[in-house]
């Protein structure tokens, strides 16, 4: 057993950002959302991921702005803690430890220092009975505080946190469970309950699905399973309670939200249409075609923005005029990733199922969705129970110039529709273009698909349940410019069902497994070279070794055997009893990763095919099965001597857990580096982040290009006249004098500071430079100061070569004077 050392499993983003409703900051500049055990802060304007709040150790289940301080946010997690953050700077302020797994969080402005938590009644059972507790947060100075005083407010509440909401000014809290609505009044300390019939004569399904309280009036909106929205009033009286009904949704209402002033009610559901109901009238407005079904809606406190989160792991920022202004797309996850995880060899992005009928390209480095590639090219209908085309298989060739996809429709094999599509990469548009579409490539479901791994020939092999495997090659038709794909060879073996196929590293051999038998073919001649068999048990997965181990073929069987054959001798090299589900060769090294399933969790072994000894083993990398995994080549190699983590040097292993979380392995050195990088990114707080800053920052970057050889040690130079700028930028606009007065002040402040700094720097540089090396240094400066090259050249032409050295020096000084502020000004004015 190899020492685990410093390798740990981390959630590497890409997790659900739609678990809970996102929140918008008071100034509408940031959107905060939960993402696994992180809180991510995005900009509402640029959609950019700004930073993360990271400290929780388990799934975050709720976030809420601190009503007492609009720059702080509370978050609660299954790990039993509530944390208070400064989300602008990403600083953890306080941690409150509860010990109960927490499932949601509610706050109210009236209840200062009190938060309401949604937690199970007992510590152990996770999905039994839930209660709502009020917690008086202790006012201690310590960083970590244990909270013991919990006061139960409502018992037996729904497990769905959107079925609970705090009412107007925190007067009451409303919660719905199944068919009952409970309203607890804090002042009277009384609960009123109202119930609906399960069904009425017209077939209505009255189960509550969500709840929202009007911010200004005593009105509670509830959404129901049959798409009705009820507005309850007079609920402080059992008898006079009354409700009105609005019905537009044809399916369950997933979420309801009142706008900040209560003038509108927003609702969303499966239809992926945002409906804006005019409160008190019967007008309604729609914003259709938002993508996946709407799960949550939130509104900004200033009423400018709405925010919807969708089932396809997306957050849409919508202006109050119902115009989509930004889309924050997470790693799209439907119910299942049918295609493998793949790496696009060109963009090094992760490719997997995305939106229905699409393949998505996702940048792991930036944890950002890049784009969707429409494979099915048909309108997707958002309705439950429809049988629609899905992308089930996809594969890239080695160079990334071809993409093969398989789409399939039909649950039963009798009415199965299969399309095999081949996409060529178009250099001009930088995207994949459909080259060949083959209808009914196989008669039955396609089981596996792979491209030849040799760089010269591109060949695609598909295996299917119809007991055949087919090889497809690009045809060379002389009369047409384009060449299309066609079937080259149809192979079968004793009418057995092929399951897996794999090419050897050099592409000279093709292994196809037929139940218990592995057949080795030569792709050139389509000759059956050899058969390998190790009964009992069918072959589950198959792969060739790489590099120095390319003579080995690995296979796992359903009877818990991991076998390694030597292809030179065609004999079993070694065999070990291990229930391995997935074999994953690292394309850049000899290592193979094997995921071994235990009943409750999955173990990972990394080994070389040459020896039956694991290089690295990690017990229970995650609970449940690991469905898909991929080795991602690193941009730069990690230099590490530690033996246990050497396998991570060239590539990184990513895998999807059963809960569809994207996980990876991280080493201590990497963590350190990350930490250093995040420190470097801390914004210099002497300058306010304003459009002016962006202008100035850009300007400064241009200047600093030559001297930023060591960015870590370099401290950004502030213009000396920044006092004036600061004054200008930090003073409220209404007390400032007229802009015309300020303009010259501002310009001069920029001018003086820049020349001053530059002069100082130049003089020091010049002092260091020896006079003899003048010619060289001049060249150097010219090369560096490319910005002013054109202008400088003009002056060089005019100047006669015969000049005294002092004159020359003076001239150079003038030349080096920075005029780029001028261009900046012109740019900003135009």
């Amino acid at each position, binding site marked *: 057993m190899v020492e685990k050392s410093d390798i740990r499993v981390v959630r590497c983003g890409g997790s659900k950002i739609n678990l809970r409703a996102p929140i918008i900051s008071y100034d509408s500049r940031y959107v905060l959302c939960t993402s696994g055990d992180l809180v991510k802060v995005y900009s509402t304007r640029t959609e950019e991921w700004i930073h993360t709040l990271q400290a929780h150790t388990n799934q975050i289940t709720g976030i809420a702005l601190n009503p007492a301080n609009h720059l702080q946010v509370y978050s609660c997690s299954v790990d039993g803690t509530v944390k208070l953050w400064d989300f602008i700077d990403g600083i953890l302020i306080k941690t409150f430890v509860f010990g109960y797994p927490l499932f949601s969080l509610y706050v109210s402005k009236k209840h200062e220092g009190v938060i309401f938590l949604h937690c199970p009644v007992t510590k152990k059972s996770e999905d039994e009975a839930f209660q709502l507790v009020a917690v008086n947060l202790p006012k201690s100075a310590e960083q970590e505080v244990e909270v013991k005083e919990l006061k139960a407010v409502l018992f037996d509440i729904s497990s769905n946190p959107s079925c609970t909401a705090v009412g107007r000014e925190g007067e009451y809290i409303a919660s719905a469970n199944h068919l009952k609505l409970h309203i607890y009044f804090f002042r009277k300390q009384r609960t009123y309950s109202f119930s609906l019939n399960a069904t009425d004569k017209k077939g209505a399904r009255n189960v509550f699905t969500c709840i929202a309280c009007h911010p200004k009036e005593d*009105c509670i909106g509830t959404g129901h399973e049959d798409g009705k929205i009820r507005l309850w009033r*007079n609920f402080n009286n059992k008898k006079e309670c009354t*409700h009105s009904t609005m019905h537009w949704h044809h399916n369950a209402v997933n979420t309801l939200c009142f706008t900040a002033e209560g003038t509108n009610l927003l609702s969303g559901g499966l239809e992926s249409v945002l409906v804006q109901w005019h409160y*008190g*009238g019967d007008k309604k407005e729609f914003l259709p075609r938002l993508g996946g079904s709407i799960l949550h809606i939130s509104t900004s406190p200033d009423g400018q923005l709405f925010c919807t989160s969708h089932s396809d792991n997306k957050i849409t920022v919508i202006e109050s005029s119902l115009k989509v202004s930004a889309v924050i797309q997470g790693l799209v996850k439907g119910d299942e990733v049918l295609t493998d995880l793949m790496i696009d060899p060109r963009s090094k992005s992760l490719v997997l199922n995305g939106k229905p009928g699409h393949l998505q390209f996702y940048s792991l480095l930036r944890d950002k969705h890049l784009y969707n590639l429409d494979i099915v090219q048909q309108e997707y209908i958002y309705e439950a129970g429809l049988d629609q085309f899905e992308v089930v298989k996809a594969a890239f060739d080695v160079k990334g110039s071809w993409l093969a996809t398989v789409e399939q429709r039909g649950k039963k094999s009798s009415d199965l529709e299969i399309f095999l599509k081949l996409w060529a990469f178009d250099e001009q548009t930088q995207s994949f273009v459909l080259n060949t579409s083959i209808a009914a490539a196989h008669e039955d479901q396609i089981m596996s698909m792979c491209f030849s791994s040799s760089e010269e020939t591109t060949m695609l092999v598909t295996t299917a349940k119809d007991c055949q495997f087919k090889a497809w090659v690009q045809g060379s038709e002389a009369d047409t410019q384009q060449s299309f794909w066609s079937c080259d060879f149809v192979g079968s073996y004793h009418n057995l069902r092929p399951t897996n196929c794999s090419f050897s590293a050099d592409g000279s051999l093709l292994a196809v497994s037929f139940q218990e038998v592995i057949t080795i073919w030569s792709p050139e001649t389509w000759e059956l070279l050899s058969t390998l068999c190790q009964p009992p048990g069918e072959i589950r997965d198959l792969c060739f070794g790489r590099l120095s181990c390319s003579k080995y073929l690995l296979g796992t069987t359903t009877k818990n055997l991991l076998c390694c054959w030597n292809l030179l001798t065609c004999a079993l090299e070694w065999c070990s009893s291990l229930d391995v589900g997935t074999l994953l060769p690292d394309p850049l090294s000899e290592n193979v990763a094997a995921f071994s399933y235990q009943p409750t969790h999955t173990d990972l072994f990394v080994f070389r095919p040459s020896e039956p000894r694991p290089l690295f083993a990690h017990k229970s990398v995650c609970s449940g099965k690991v469905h898909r995994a991929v080795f991602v080549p690193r941009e730069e190699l990690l230099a590490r001597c530690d033996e246990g983590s050497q396998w991570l040097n060239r590539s990184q292993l990513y895998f999807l857990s059963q809960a569809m979380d994207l996980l990876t392995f991280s080493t201590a050195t990497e963590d350190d580096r990350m930490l250093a990088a995040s420190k470097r990114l801390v914004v210099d707080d002497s300058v306010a982040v304003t459009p002016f800053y962006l202008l100035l920052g850009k300007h400064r970057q241009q200047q600093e290009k030559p001297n930023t050889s060591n960015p870590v040690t370099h401290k950004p130079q502030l213009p000396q006249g920044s006092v004036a700028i600061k004054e200008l930028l930090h003073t409220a606009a209404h007390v400032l004098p007229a802009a015309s007065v300020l303009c010259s002040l501002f310009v001069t402040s920029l001018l003086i500071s820049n020349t001053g700094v530059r002069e100082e720097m130049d003089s020091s540089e010049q002092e260091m430079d020896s006079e003899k090396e003048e010619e060289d240094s001049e060249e150097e400066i010219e090369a560096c100061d490319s910005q002013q090259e054109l202008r400088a050249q003009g002056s060089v032409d005019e100047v006669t070569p015969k000049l005294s050295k002092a004159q020359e020096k003076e001239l150079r000084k003038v030349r080096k004077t920075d005029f780029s502020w001028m261009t900046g000004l012109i740019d900003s004015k135009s």
Partner: protein
Amino acid sequence: MGEFKVHQVRFFEYMPTGIRALAFHAQNEKMAVARMDGSVEICDCSDNFFQEKVIPGREQSGIEALSWVGDRLFSAGLNGEIAEYDLTNQKVKYTIDAYGGPIWTITGNKQGTHLAVGCEDGNVKLFEVIEDKIQFERNLNRQKGRIISLSWHPSGSKIAAGMMDMIQVFNVETGNSIHRMLVDRGLRRSRSEECVVWSVVYLSDGTIISGDSAGMVKMWDDCTGTLIKSHSVTKSDVLALSVSQKEDSLVAGTSEGCVVQFQFISVVLEKDEKEWVRTRTFKNHTHDIRAVAEITTAVVSGGMDTQLVVRPLLDKVEVRSTASALRKILFPHRRLVSCAKKAGLMLFQYPSHLELWRLGESEGQSTPGSSLPIRRKPEKLLFLKVKGEEHIRCSVVSPCGEWIAYSTASSLRLYRLHCDNNNVSITKMSKLPKVLSSANQLCFSPDSSHLFSASTESSVHIVSLNQLGCKYVATLKPKSGSKQAINLLTASEDGNWLASANSDHEVQVYNLQKRKTHCTVPIYSSAVSAIAFHPTTNCLFMVHADQQMFEFSIEQKQYTDWSRSVQRNKLHHIWLERDTPVTNVMFDPKNPSHVILHDMYMLCVIDKSLPLPENSSQFYNQLTLKSLPAEERKFYSHAFKICKTFRAILCVEQMLDQSLVVVERPLTDITTQLPAPIKQKKFAT
């Protein structure tokens, strides 16, 4: 339950007419319902909405509006006349021409002193209500355009009038217009189309609420004459509005068949500031709702689809009971069919004509539940058009099938029917006795020798009939001196007894031999919906509108033991929860302990020899009994046997050969004859 040969009759093309106006009398809890054919029905809201009085209409006299002033009921219509009704004798008392062209609306003030009518010519005319009469007082300032709707301020000093495109508020004293509030024509229709303010309601706090053809319900302030709030309720018209007594709830009827409720509730709990908020929507109609009324515990609505719907407001109901169920009144609570038992003839009463049919005959035997082959088809023998404009109030055919009698509000006609082979002819009996000028209810004696005619003040005139003519015999008068009209008459099989029931719920039993009152049945709180004499024991069987049953022994002048046991044990709750009254009682001659009853939805045989069902036991137990072995069956069986084979029963009668005639009028047949409703887009169509 016995076996019967059943004539299933579906050729009575009964067609109810749409409801045009509703007026609720809060003190008496009476609802006046005006229909398109000009008839007015008075329903008792406290007594399961039993139609206790029906005033037949006239040709060409549509009613546009109804109004109670005190206990007096007034109506006005497009013929330009105001009518007052004589509710005791169930007829029009007098009509008076308003001289303002067609009248769209009539409304009385709360004080009961004045009536205001809105006329086509733009006049609001005030009539003073004086004893036995109304008198024209003056016109308010004349406006351009017709007055569609009117509403008095509860103080009686101001009146709001809904017109074309505007609402005018008048000072009643000076007759001047205080405010003129323009109503938006709405965007949905073309701008050129005028907006009709179909209904206005003036609240005591000075709010005027209007419903218009743009589909809006608007709240106005009468102080400033400005719009406070506007609710868009429907894409089509808002036709009717009604406010509750406490002025905390308002209902609006739309032409899409929806009733929309608004409530005056505080937007912030426990604060006084209140607002009109749209709350519930009830959709119980398929066609235009022409009239709504909010009564204490329910919303009553009626419209073009001819049914009166009572939608209870559960938040105002103390206990959930029979009274708190949704109720739809489709068929009249009185009989429109009479049967000549011996001759096998049926007389169907239409508003302005009568039809006489001969029942078909069948042959052979068949198993229960299956239909028999028909030997002779039923045939229509007679079509008798009523003379004059008035509609028929009651009609009857004699058991022998030789006499037909009908009465309108002002005249009674008696015909003798000659029926030999296929030739049918009738002769009108002339020179009727003077007492037979009109009748509220008619009945022949079982041997067809006498005609009983119910007249004013609950009196019954007896006329003997023979081949040559008829002769006045006697008049029976109740001792109670009730002035109400009789609505049920029945004679015993042996010809000795006659029973009558009137709208005061009094049941009188007369001895026809002595021609005087025999006894009076104790008055029960609910109206009598059906009475009949038992053919052998001569016990009087009565069923009331609240579904209670009594059996009264004539000889002992007291309730029978069975009747007492029914009262003691209480009837089964399922029986009590039925919402249509029993309209006929018959007896099975083969088995004297069997009583046959029917209402609109079912036929029931009560076996008096069996125990009554316990409240907890299964009520509809015939299927369960069938599955049980014979010994256990006895233990579980109870008196009520329900047959739901027939739907929408108008009438069930027994013929002499012990076959039953079931007159059905399937509701789909009625709906197909209705005009097309407003086209509405339905989801997924």
